[in-house]
């Protein structure tokens, strides 16, 4: 840079990288491909609907659209109610999540325990909370509560990473100029975290929508969730699909809005090139103690609520009830846990395999990517729980559907994260491989795949706990075994202690699975860097 050194480095870098991409991984030229992909998707749908294939539970496009038109008043009332609940609940969850992450910005060492507490809360299956909340005064706000809960985890994770993303040099500058803690937070960490906060917002939109819909299954009398359950029970498939379509549409709108916000925040406030480092700790012993304190506190709060509120066991069991129920037949719960684990693990393995395979295929043949891009936009916004009953009508009631739900759950994050993992290769390595005349396959095998391993591990960690949660939901709705089934059976006979024993086992399972996955991820990351 010798001339009057004015240029836009980021633009230059962009151009450089896009030049390189164009050379070794040709980009699609046809903007028509995504359109063709969309049309293909619609065609498949129409064909299935028209042939009454897959159990006849999938209506044709025209009957679904007809339903959207005919029942536009009911649907729009439901959509606005659900959207409002998702927005207000999601906003509360977002604020709580950002606040918790903000605490980690003030007390960096609280980061580890805060994240782990978030993992713990995320492991609580909301479907189990619904019946308890129904008996309480908060009943009309269940959709908002679920929306908030669905948002908190990803918000805490994303925004605490944001607060950690501020460069150490900037922190030093602030300290040297005698900045107070508050100044450091409001002038440095908060603006620096804004792109991440916008990212959290983007992720929150479909999550809040899903939470609100789930919450409406528990005694609301208006909303998309109510329409879905009513349509499901009254066998109004066109209405069910019209409602699901509307829910997905709203999620897409929210997701796209969030994406635009995220982009503009990143443009304005700059996204650091490097990933934020890991959370600080107090050292092993303290850390363990603080982390263990969260579940202990949770159990104490629970006991206090039962005692102080004089809550009858038929509404919610005490921790003692749950322990007794578990003690009476541990084998039943552990056996069910084994079955849930098999479904979730199998789903994870198959889903991850499919995700990697598709990401590789798309990397090798970019036109496939453009072709599939409409699907890639849709899948993250689809509340998978909505499709469990539909999969049930296709695959039958039993393990196949549970497994398929887990596959769907695992597939998408792995696909998306692998796609960026395969694209993120060490700087200059592409040129190196090209100079040595390595072909596309060899570059993939020796460069892109090994380089993407850390990304793969992140994807696996993110999917693990979710797979267990979705397995339990699927078992609850239409399984023939597993923890979800045990929960459902115990609940029907109002054995709340037994039902919650199954829930607690599932929480422990989720947290353990997450811990194992993140330990594995750390080990690999150390080897790879």
């Amino acid at each position, binding site marked *: *840079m*010798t001339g009057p*050194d*004015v*240029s*836009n*480095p*980021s633009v230059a870098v962009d151009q450089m990288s896009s030049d390189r991409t164009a050379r070794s991984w040709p980009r699609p030229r046809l903007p028509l491909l995504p359109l063709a992909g969309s049309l293909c998707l619609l065609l498949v749908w129409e064909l299935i609907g028209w042939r009454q294939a897959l159990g006849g539970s999938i209506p044709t496009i025209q009957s679904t659209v007809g339903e959207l038109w005919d029942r536009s008043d009911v649907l729009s009332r439901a959509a606005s109610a659900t959207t409002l609940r998702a927005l207000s609940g999601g906003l509360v969850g977002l604020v709580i999540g950002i606040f918790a992450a903000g605490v980690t910005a003030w007390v960096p060492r609280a980061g580890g325990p805060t994240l782990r507490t978030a993992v713990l809360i995320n492991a609580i299956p909301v479907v189990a909370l619904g019946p308890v909340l129904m008996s309480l005064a908060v009943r009309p706000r269940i959709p908002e509560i679920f929306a908030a809960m669905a948002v908190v985890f990803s918000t805490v994770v994303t925004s605490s990473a944001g607060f950690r993303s501020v*460069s150490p*040099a*900037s922190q*030093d*500058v*602030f*300290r*040297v*100029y*005698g*900045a107070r803690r508050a*100044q450091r937070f409001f*002038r*440095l960490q908060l*603006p*620096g975290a*804004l792109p991440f906060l916008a990212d959290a917002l983007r992720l929150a939109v479909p999550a809040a929508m899903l939470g609100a819909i789930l919450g409406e299954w528990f005694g609301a009398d208006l909303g998309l969730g109510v329409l879905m359950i009513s349509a499901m029970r009254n066998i109004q498939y066109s209405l069910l699909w019209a409602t699901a379509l509307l829910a997905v549409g709203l999620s897409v709108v929210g997701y796209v809005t969030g994406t635009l916000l995220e982009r503009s925040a990143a443009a*304005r*406030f*700059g996204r650091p090139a490097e990933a934020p480092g890991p959370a600080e700790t107090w050292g092993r012993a303290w850390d363990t103690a603080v982390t263990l304190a969260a579940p202990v506190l949770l159990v104490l709060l629970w006991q206090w609520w039962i005692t102080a509120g004089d809550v009858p066991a038929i509404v919610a069991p005490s921790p003692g009830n749950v322990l007794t129920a578990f003690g009476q037949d541990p084998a039943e719960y552990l056996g069910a846990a084994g079955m849930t684990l098999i479904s979730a693990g199998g789903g994870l393995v198959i889903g991850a395999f499919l995700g990697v395979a598709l990401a590789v295929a798309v990397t090798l043949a970019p036109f496939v990517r453009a072709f599939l891009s409409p699907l890639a936009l849709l899948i993250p916004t689809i509340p998978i729980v909505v499709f469990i009953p539909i999969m049930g009508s296709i695959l039958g009631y039993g393990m196949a559907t549970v497994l398929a739900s887990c596959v769907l759950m695992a597939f998408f994050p792995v696909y998306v994260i692998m796609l960026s993992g395969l694209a993120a290769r060490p700087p200059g390595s592409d040129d190196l491989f090209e100079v040595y005349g390595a072909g596309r396959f060899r570059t993939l095998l020796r460069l892109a795949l090994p380089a993407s391993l850390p990304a793969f591990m992140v994807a696996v960690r993110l999917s693990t706990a979710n797979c267990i949660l979705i397995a339990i939901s699927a078992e609850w709705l239409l399984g023939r075994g597993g923890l979800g089934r045990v929960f459902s059976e115990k609940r029907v006979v109002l054995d709340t202690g037994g039902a919650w024993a199954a829930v607690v086992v599932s929480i422990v399972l989720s947290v353990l699975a997450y811990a194992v996955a993140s330990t594995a991820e750390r080990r690999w990351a150390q080897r790879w860097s």
Partner: protein
Amino acid sequence: MTDIASGGLHFDGVTKTFASRSLSVAALSDFSLQVAEGEFVALLGPSGCGKSTALRLAAGLEQPDAGQLTVAGASPHQIVAARGLGVAFQDNALLPWLSVRRNVELPFKLAGRPVDRHRVDELIELVGLSDFARHRPRQLSGGMRQRVSIARSLVLSPRVLLLDEPFGALDAVTRHRLNVELARILDNERTTTLLVTHSVEEAVFLADRVAVMTGRPGRVKRIADVPFGRHRDRTTQADPRFQALVADLTLLLDADLARGANT
């Protein structure tokens, strides 16, 4: 207290050890260095010799394990509290969401003082960025960002200026040009300055005295006076005395590195 004692930067027998779980590394051991008021001293050494640690101690970013450290007659913490320091790092540490002008104003805001608009204008002018005051850092080149960083370090008229490889990430040509500019700027400002660098040319070109460090443990090996006045420009480097001193110091560093490699 005399003027010199109150104005300069003094390390007396400073020791700093970093301990991790398995090993401890002595970054500085019995390190002593005096920088008089208004003097510019360059701390020169290979990477890892502890020179950045010395600067971070002076900035109050690290605490010494032993020894005395006074900055403008006070402890680093007192001087930080009095907003008496200026810093510039290799990582420019500009806030990407603020314009050039707002970045330069930042120390006023952090000190809770009213922004001296005249001073800000003056410094932006001094680093030659008057036309870019409203731009954001990402719209500037690397060299321009470092100039903003220099302007920011001077805006509060600090008692002591601490520069840690401020041009370390730039290409040789840009780096040289900025060195010329920095010499001009500091000729104006006359601030007590400690520059940490691994570039012999940069050290000799800018400083009144060059302190050469050895690594493990970090200690000053030799102090060389630079035989030029403060007013320096492109012709300075052509001076045979400049070339001789650079060659001399380079040899010194090289010998030290070779010794390190043999052990």
